[in-house]
């Protein structure tokens, strides 16, 4: 056996099979960390890249789907309107994994309506917001998630209170809501894995610092602030359906399990406080408490694995709709005779 043997996953694929183009984002951009964790999560879960489809809106975040999963189909849509694009496409093959990448400009401004209607319909997909509080591609304007009082070079001081994507998701009846931090790649990865198994829209609001326009140490979307103020709700580990649960780091301490729709589990190890992510009341209270205390609260904030998805309301065929042969799509000539006869 060669020592240089390339590591593969259960499908016999290497990590490089999950790579995309070289990133053209700024070195140090939080988005690159997130891309790397999407790649790793899919590799480690042995998901066939051909069974994944990627979508994005417009902005730095939305460029990033080019930088991972180069063997997956993808569509870079319009500003704030990735949810509708993804929803229409998802019907073509409901068993494919759908990953959407958006930013705070894309989701919290122009896209707020589509975002909230996506989660209301609970389309099974992973919805990642790479949240840095600032517009990057147009060079440094405030986004709607920028904190009141934030000062930017060309903009002066932000007079408005921010939109909180996690709160919007919670009151919008999202079935999976998490917040994470690009400075904590392990947590990002485990949350992505759990999100990929959730039967509904999984909202991941990931604080992802912009090193060019909004990374001053005292600002809420910076690496420094995040590292100092991150308050994880729990240690999180995702366990696929087929694996026995033997995790060294979880051998000691109090844990809580959430069983997802496909039988896989999320194991949450208690840290400082009791937290039940299946209680929306807990979630809303905790997120307010975090605001008051200046915590960057991270982890799986809320999950309801049993909330029906959009597909559950439609009596849809199991076979991929885009593979249905043309002959099966056209009703019979006799049926048209009956329709004509009924219109006399």
């Amino acid at each position, binding site marked *: 056996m060669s020592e240089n043997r390339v590591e593969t996953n259960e499908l016999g694929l290497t990590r490089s099979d999950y790579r995309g183009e070289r990133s053209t984002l700024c070195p140090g951009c939080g988005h690159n960390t997130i891309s790397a964790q999407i790649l790793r999560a899919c590799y480690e879960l042995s998901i066939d890249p*051909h069974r994944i489809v990627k979508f994005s809106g417009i902005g730095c975040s939305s460029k990033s789907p080019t930088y991972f999963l180069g063997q997956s*189909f*993808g569509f870079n849509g*319009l500003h704030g309107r990735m949810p509708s694009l993804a929803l*229409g496409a998802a019907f073509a093959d409901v068993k*494919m994994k759908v990953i959407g990448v958006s930013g705070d400009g894309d989701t919290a401004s122009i896209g707020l309506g589509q975002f909230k209607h996506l989660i209301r319909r609970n389309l099974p997909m992973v919805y990642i917001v790479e949240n840095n509080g600032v517009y990057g591609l147009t060079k440094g304007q405030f986004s709607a998630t920028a904190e009141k009082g934030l000062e930017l070079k060309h903009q002066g001081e932000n007079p408005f209170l921010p939109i909180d994507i996690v709160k919007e998701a919670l009151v919008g009846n999202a079935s999976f809501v998490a917040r994470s931090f690009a400075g904590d790649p392990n947590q990002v990865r485990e949350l992505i894995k759990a999100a990929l198994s959730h039967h509904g829209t999984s909202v991941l609001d990931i604080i992802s610092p912009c090193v060019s326009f909004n990374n001053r140490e005292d600002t809420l979307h910076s690496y420094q602030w995040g590292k100092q103020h991150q308050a994880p709700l729990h240690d999180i580990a995702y366990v696929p359906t087929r694996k026995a649960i033997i995790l060294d780091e979880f051998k000691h301490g109090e844990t809580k399990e959430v069983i997802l729709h496909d039988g896989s589990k999320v194991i949450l190890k208690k840290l400082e406080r009791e937290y039940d992510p299946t209680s929306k009341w807990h979630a809303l209270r905790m997120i307010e408490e975090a605001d008051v205390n200046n915590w960057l609260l991270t982890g799986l904030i809320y999950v309801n694995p049993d909330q029906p998805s959009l597909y559950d309301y439609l*009596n849809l*065929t199991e076979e991929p709709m885009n593979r249905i042969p043309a002959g099966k799509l056209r*009703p019979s000539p006799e049926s048209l005779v009956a329709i004509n006869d009924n219109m006399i």
Partner: protein
Amino acid sequence: MIKDSELLSKEGGNLEESINDFCMTICTVNGSGSATANNTLLRALFHMGIPVSGKNIFPSNIKGLPTWFSIRASDKGYLGRVAHDDIIVQMNPITFKEDLIYDVPGGVVFYADHIDMPIDRDDVIVYPMPVKDLIAEADVSRDLRDYMSNMVYVGIVSQILGIGLEFINDALLRQFNKKRSVAESNFAIVKLAADWAKENLEKRDRYRVEKQEPLKDFIMTDGNTAGALGAIYGGFQFCGWYPITPATSLAESLGIFSPKLRKDPETGKHNFAIVQAEDELASIGMAVGAGWAGLRSMTSTSGPGVSLMTEYMSMAYYAEVPLVLWDVQRVGPSTGLPTRTAQCDLNLTYFLGHGDTQQLVIIPSSVNECFEFGWKAFDFAEEFQTPVIVLSDLDLGMNLWMTTRFEYPDQPINRGKILWEEGLEKFKGEWGRYLDVDGDGIPYRTVMGNISEKAPYFARGTGHDEFGNYSEDADVWQRMLNRIKLKFDTARERLPKPIFRKIEGAEIGLIAMGSTESAVIEAQDQLERKGIRTDFMRVRALPFSSEVRAFIQSHPRNYVIELNRDGQLNQILAIEYCDLTDRLISLAYIDGLPITANYIIDSISSKEDSDHE
């Protein structure tokens, strides 16, 4: 309700019998349940073998504002609007006085006799209708009284005109979807009223109906229902939509018919999905996603919705995504005349989008053609990998028309150049999503779920090379845009060709599109009788095919007839054929109502007369 010269030109006071030829307008308030009564009369005439059309002129309102329903019966088969009334059925005191103006001399007025208004015309024949007394006599429950009142005029009008009650009975059964007990209770009022009229009214007017040969090759329905059925037989798989008058009933019809027609016989599961979106920004986004992913995808809306869809329609043009957009045109914004008809979105749709965009537009003129274009639109969209806009309008979409029976598609579904795993294997040479292999500007596409190693690509606007790689290179941009133009030139000759109706020796051309066809044909016949011979070309698609130029070239004067202010079809013809503009004369007309044959006749007659003076 627009007065035009027909009122003046029609010989008045002539009591010569008129058989199977009249326009009857029923004046009510909306929300009073008159639609059932009106459609019953319309359908009964149709069952008697008399060609008919029905036009509902209604306000943007739920209840209480004036509404008119015009039934045109024409033994010659002319189904366009006329601006006068031969017969008025008056149930609305508010419009009582003004409606009278439109009655021709020698015309008829039926009116509910509780309306206490003077009739200041002595050249019309008046029949009072004791609506309240008859309803009281029939002992109708209180909550149904207003509704049942409408059946009184059905009975009295039928008796006076000679509409057989057996036809009314059949029509009622049809109206109530064969619910016999409801139909019977309505028919009881009709019978009571007809009997009253027989006893108490003496026929003094000239209008009469007679049974004709059955119209056995015809059906009666509206364009939105037909468009939806066309889409179902065209194999539609996804519709994202948002409610808007006058397009709403198209998507709703999909929802009514699809579960029956498109259920897998083995599994009982649906092979389609319909989603009511949060707005038109989302409905078009959904349609683009579905079309890109390989579903036969559609949306339906009207002008304001098209405005909202513009950005994604541009994206679909650049990314070459097939989908079908129905634009059921109306006059203006929601606070314009949203319930009135127009052909005012031609420029909007043909040039829809930012940058160097152009769209394929197909324009049905009849309910039957709404069905035909309903299925063909998907074939065009997938053949050319671009959105196809079907341009209908309120008159066609929402009004009931007699139309020829729907014909089963005569071509198999054409999915265009789509490659699955096997196709990609067999593909000669290297595959590139935007590579023109056949020289027709149309590349081959793959869709998500294709597990071939070569298949995936990342879709975006035109900033890509032939292989779908991101590029901002100037040459690449130019090449991609010119290739799309070539694709549109290929489409020119494959979209529906114009339809011609020619008269020997004609030197004048008539050019029109869509729902004005019936009025143009009527005008063409009448102009011929006046010695003005014309050829008619009905344009059915944009961009134009070569026949359009040839037609204009072969006529020194071409009148372009359309239902909008600025003559949009004329403008586009002038852009395409700038060397022929001296042969084009715009006859544009807009007031929210369907065009009349008389407007066309008068306009052309006066222009031709002055030319020859």
